């Protein structure tokens, strides 16, 4: 059972990583326009580099 000493912190860390990822998506406003984002994937514009995002980080 000594393995628990490693496994529990590892599982908690992975979970926390997921939570941090969720916070990041929330902060970078990725839930503002689900309808538009799902269609933008089909667009070949900005395929080679990401579009400079005017909204991230500040309140529009």
């Amino acid at each position, binding site marked *: *059972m000594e393995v*628990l000493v490693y496994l*529990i912190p590892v*599982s*908690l860390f992975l*979970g*926390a990583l*997921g*939570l941090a990822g*969720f*916070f990041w998506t*929330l902060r970078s406003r990725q*839930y*503002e*326009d*689900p*309808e*538009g984002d799902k*269609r*933008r994937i*089909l*667009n070949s*514009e900005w395929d080679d580099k990401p579009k*400079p995002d*005017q*909204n991230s980080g500040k*309140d*529009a």
Partner: protein
Amino acid sequence: MLSLPTIHCAGCISSVERALNAAPGVLAARVNLTLKRASVDAEPGVVADDLITVLDRAGFEAHELDPGALAVTGTDRTGRDLLMRLGVAGFAMMNVMLLSISVWAGADDATRDLFHWISAAITLPAIAFCAQPFFKNAWSALRVGRMNMDVPIALAILLAAGTSLYETAQSGEHAYFDAAIALTFFLLIGRYLDYRTRAVARSAAEELAALEVPRVVRLQDGQEDTVDLSEIVAGDLVRVRPGGRMPVDGEVTDGSSEIDRSLLTGETAPVPCGVGDTVQAGEVNLTGPLTLRTIAAGRDSSLHALADLVAVAESGRARYSSLADKAAKLYAPGVHIIAVLAMAGWWLGTGDLRVALNIAAAVLIITCPCALGLAVPAVTTAASGRLFRKGMLIKSATALERLAEIDTVVFDKTGTLTEGVPVPENSADLTGVQAACALALAQASAHPLAAALAKDLTARGIVAAALSDVREQPGFGIEGDHSGTRVRLGRADWVGATGPMPMLTATWFADGEGPPVALRFRDTLRSGALQAVSELRAAGLDVQLLSGDSSAAVAALASEAGIDTVRAGVLPAEKAAHVAALSDAGRKVLMVGDGLNDTAALAAAHVSISPASGLDAARVASDVVLMGNDLSALGDAHRTARRAVARIHENFRLATIYNIGAVPLAVAGLATPLIAALAMSASSITVSLNALRVR
């Protein structure tokens, strides 16, 4: 901020953004397809009108939105806050579940205690953060001595966490940390669904308001400049172009015209007005440009004075307690009494307070407050989504429940049951040359009656005669010269008509030979109005028509629509009184209206609907806003509301059945945390699936 009602695909997004970015002065533009809006960062000099022209050339319809009216949706704090709590609760629940499963699988002694302690370390902070909305609601209800759904919820969460912590400290066998956090998670889902549904409807309703950008043309030292309505103060001179709505209460200082007061009084007939007359905010200027000296603007204007009337009428509706609260009133005491009795019984029986407390916690958790918490939001979300696709915005949380209860429908006439656009009735009375002259005159005027006449005559294939010297006399009519004869189209006294006046809205045509011809107009029914009325009647509702218009016009329309109970010439306060009288007689009234004269009645009714074409004040006062031009959705809305309420009752019954099965187990002390977790998930899923049947 621009509204783009026609965009729908990836191609639209890129062409709109490309067009906007190419426009001079635009720094950045981004389309939001979900909201069908584009937000534009531009240099100071860029005006929305230029961008609208740019988009028009690219083939997209665009409207300017007033960012001030959209402030609430722009920074959607509450929504993100709920989503954040939901995410944290989800994370905590998954980790605690992993630990719990190993405990259920047989971990014991030190391992079990360790797992319990880790669970506690995750759960307690998570609950402290995530369950705040429930604690706050429960506290605010308890403080005023009322009961709502959040009281048993908050109690169950707190007791579960508290006893589990105590048990863990005593290295006991059972801990309910997973149940406490799962309860929070499921309930937050319900809360978030509920919020999302209303946020969508609210933002669409706000967009309607934001489309009316409050800009006013102010005259200062003979110079015209366009300013925001908020900058106008009493005494300012304001110019109102034909077709524009009066932005302020004021006195006419220059110009003469006719004004359409239908939004305020329900009367369709235009009223002449000239220098010295007073006009009210909300009236529409029809023919000539007017200059007003502002008497009252903004909050002081008569438009806002009506808000007091609305506030008084609305107090009646605050008495409505939602189905969820009614259920909580039955559920909460029952469950709490059982829990206390079970605790007392076990304490007396075994003398062990720890066991007794454990049993009480098990009872509170296993009675599935989470199914009850999901029962209403899951159904209203599904039903509102269905109605949203049909063009109805459900603004109020309990609107569907109230809509299902109605037994009387009161319609306003002008602009609600009718288009509010006149159609000539007897243009065939004009002879060939007369019709040709009338068409030529009508085409030269912006007056709505003239526009309607021109449309009708053109549709009948009449070619306009060549007229010279065409002049419009604002407030009177229009005249021209047809090969030497003076032809006039306008008010009766101006064209020289005598004799009995027709009861309906009319304009007159005179060519100097023979008596002037009266052209009568009537309002046409909105599309879907007949269907809506017949469907509502078929559903066993009493349909009534209430209008401020003259009785002849109302009666004609009522018989066309198939409505028997009619009252004409009603003042705004009488409308509200009529609705209140019906309510006092025990009726549940649905009021459908669009004008300022309806707002008090809308607020007084059990539930109210207003069309998107209505005045902002009416839309604000009503629970449901009807988008588009078609009334036929009304019948379906009523059916959907009844179905939704039936589902809600079914959900409550389902939750009760679970309780009947689970409570004896818990009271007998047989409920383990595993059983509690299974019962909770199973009941939540059943309730959600049942709700989806409404779609």
